[in-house]
């Protein structure tokens, strides 16, 4: 078959057909994968909650817009046999090295950090991504600390947190996200 001539009609038609087929294919794949993706995300959130909190049997979920924040935090208040065992807070920071970082922070009823889990980040692979438990145990230093006496700042800024080597900005971002969660938790507590 001879090559099609580059006439105006041919070009418009070709581009239209190519983009239309691509759009159809993408729409199809999107609708097929939509549900599995949602399930995968939900599983991840649930897994993170169970990682950062002690055992629980019931969870109450609500959202709060933090002061000076552009997105809301999600609180997961966990109880066991009607007794409060802790709160998991899905928090974020925009101070990451490259974009927003989402973290799940588990606080016990007194406000002591039980555990943390990174949900989503775009930090440098090999450096900033050490905030993730899968990459290094850096974030374990937060466990069992109460932010009222444990200053959530890197040592360079006069805080108590040892920064990740060569990833001070990512470390600061992590602290910022935890601090934001703690501030909102405190406000809730006083109410």
């Amino acid at each position, binding site marked *: 078959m001879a090559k099609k001539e580059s006439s105006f009609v041919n*070009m418009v038609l070709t581009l239209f057909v190519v983009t239309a087929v691509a759009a159809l294919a993408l729409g199809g*794949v999107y609708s097929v994968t939509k549900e599995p993706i949602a399930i995968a995300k939900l599983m991840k959130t649930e897994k993170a909650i169970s990682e950062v909190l002690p055992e629980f049997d019931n969870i109450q979920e609500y959202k709060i817009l933090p002061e000076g924040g552009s997105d809301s935090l999600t609180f997961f208040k966990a109880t066991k046999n009607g007794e409060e065992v802790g709160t998991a807070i899905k928090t974020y920071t925009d101070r990451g090295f490259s974009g927003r970082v989402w973290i799940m922070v588990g606080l016990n009823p007194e406000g002591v950090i039980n555990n943390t889990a990174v949900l989503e980040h775009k930090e440098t692979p090999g450096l900033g991504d050490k905030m993730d438990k899968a990459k290094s145990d850096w974030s374990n230093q937060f466990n069992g600390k109460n932010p009222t006496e444990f200053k959530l700042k890197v040592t360079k800024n006069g805080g108590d947190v040892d920064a990740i080597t060569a990833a001070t900005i990512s470390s600061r971002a992590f602290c910022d996200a935890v601090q934001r969660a703690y501030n909102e938790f405190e406000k809730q507590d006083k109410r």
Partner: protein
Amino acid sequence: MNQLQNFTKGFIKDNPVFVLLLGLCPTLGVTTTAINGLGMGLATMFVLVMSNLVVSLIKNLIPDKVRIPSFIVIIASFVTIVELTMQAYTPALFEALGLFIPLIVVNCIVLGRAEAFASKNNIISSVIDGLGMGLGFAFALFLLGAVREILGSGAILSMKFIQGDGMLVFVLAPGAFIALGYLIAIMNRLKKTT
């Protein structure tokens, strides 16, 4: 050129990274560990094979003046399909590579092969070319990733063999250039002797 030569040229003679120096943006960005490099290489290979196949199929239906936009739409569609499928069925792999998948679109090697090879050759040759080039790319990324992981993190395939950090510069962008430079030099030396 027979099909075997067509397949193997992507490894040494026309290796996309070491010889053609194409697709350096994802190359330098993702190769902080060997496994990241390998995953990115294989994902790119899939896109390369599929886009070569489709481009070769419809090469006569596309007028010359609009071939580049058409190729880009085709490539971008396959990349998005890979991204969505990975996200849905292999969330763990997506976790590690998710950031880099969209980068495949801007990888010159995919468009380069579509333009330079698939639009001029038949389907079988194009698919074999895509496979060979893709494997060559994956091999190069794996090698570069392994070198950077050993020097930068003191580990290989995430298994630590020294305590603490390695030479951090190799994890950062400058280290990628340094390691790539030396690998290219070694490849050139090897090619000279054979």
